[in-house]
């Protein structure tokens, strides 16, 4: 298969087949980002299409300073801002007062002895992730699903690095609280 750079160059010259190959490659991740933020399949699908249509019209302006994938994330995020007017404000309001970060430990919780319990916990936490506020869902999705670094997220969302770290820290704090609530409930009703 042709590499992305060659496809991009051809698409920039107006080759729609090359652009179709790029759409094929990236649509799933764009859709998932939109879905995580909007929590509505139809809207997410619509936004994904809109993202690629906008990317096509803006393609001559793409100078390759960032990865194509990151550029698409920026477009879809801007479209999410339009759909959710409070999203941008809630991100900038996060501030950058984080003192420490949760250490990114290896996910070694899933050991055979506690398999069933950990699966149940994992499923509970997945649910809790989906119920986070929209700004946290966006940050979590960019960091863990799309595997962007803190710096890339900060540049992409035009936010200070500290704000991105604060947002992720608070998201994890919310998950920790949810986990504690779940633990207390399961302790009371064994």
């Amino acid at each position, binding site marked *: 298969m042709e590499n992305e750079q060659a496809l991009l160059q051809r698409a920039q010259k*107006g080759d729609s087949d090359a*652009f179709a190959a790029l759409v094929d490659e990236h649509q799933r991740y764009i859709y998932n980002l939109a879905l995580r933020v909007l929590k509505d*399949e139809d809207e997410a699908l619509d936004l994904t299409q809109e993202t690629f249509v906008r990317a096509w019209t803006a393609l001559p302006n793409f100078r390759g300073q960032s990865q194509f994938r990151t550029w698409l994330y920026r477009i879809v995020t801007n479209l999410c801002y339009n759909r959710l007017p409070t999203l941008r404000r809630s991100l900038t309001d996060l501030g950058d007062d984080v003192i420490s970060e949760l250490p990114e*430990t290896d996910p070694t*919780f899933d050991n055979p002895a506690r398999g069933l319990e950990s699966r149940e916990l994992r499923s509970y936490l997945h649910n809790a992730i989906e119920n986070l506020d929209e700004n946290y869902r966006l940050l*979590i999705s960019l960091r863990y*699903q799309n595997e962007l670094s803190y710096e890339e997220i900060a540049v992409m969302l035009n936010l200070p690095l500290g704000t991105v770290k604060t947002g992720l820290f608070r998201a994890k704090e919310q998950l920790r609280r949810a*986990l504690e609530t779940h633990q207390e409930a399961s302790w009371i009703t064994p």
Partner: protein
Amino acid sequence: MDNSLTPEKQNAAIEDALHTHPVAPLPHNITVDVMSRIKTIPAPRPFLLTRNDLVLAIVFSVCIGAMWFSINHLPPLLIAQIRKESILLYQQILVNMRWLLPVLSFGLAAFLSALTIPYLRQELQNHREN
């Protein structure tokens, strides 16, 4: 049985959940939809220098060159004269600033307002036709 997790295990569980959060499958491939929408949009025009751009660049270069040449070859007496006239003009402006500034401001405002007249007339006409 004690169900409570240590903070380390909580962190591990959270990290695990964040890393394993499943990616949703796409309901259907959207490439065809996107491409059909794109077909109605003209193909993006690649960045090109046209002949007009080149002609404009040459004209500007010649003008700037001619000005530079003229300034460097003016007789010293004329340069002194120009400098004197410039100082006099500047002083005239300073002396008349009290009325010149409001007149220029109002003039500019009137000019900008006048620019909206054709648009407003068109709007009025459309309104009458409807």
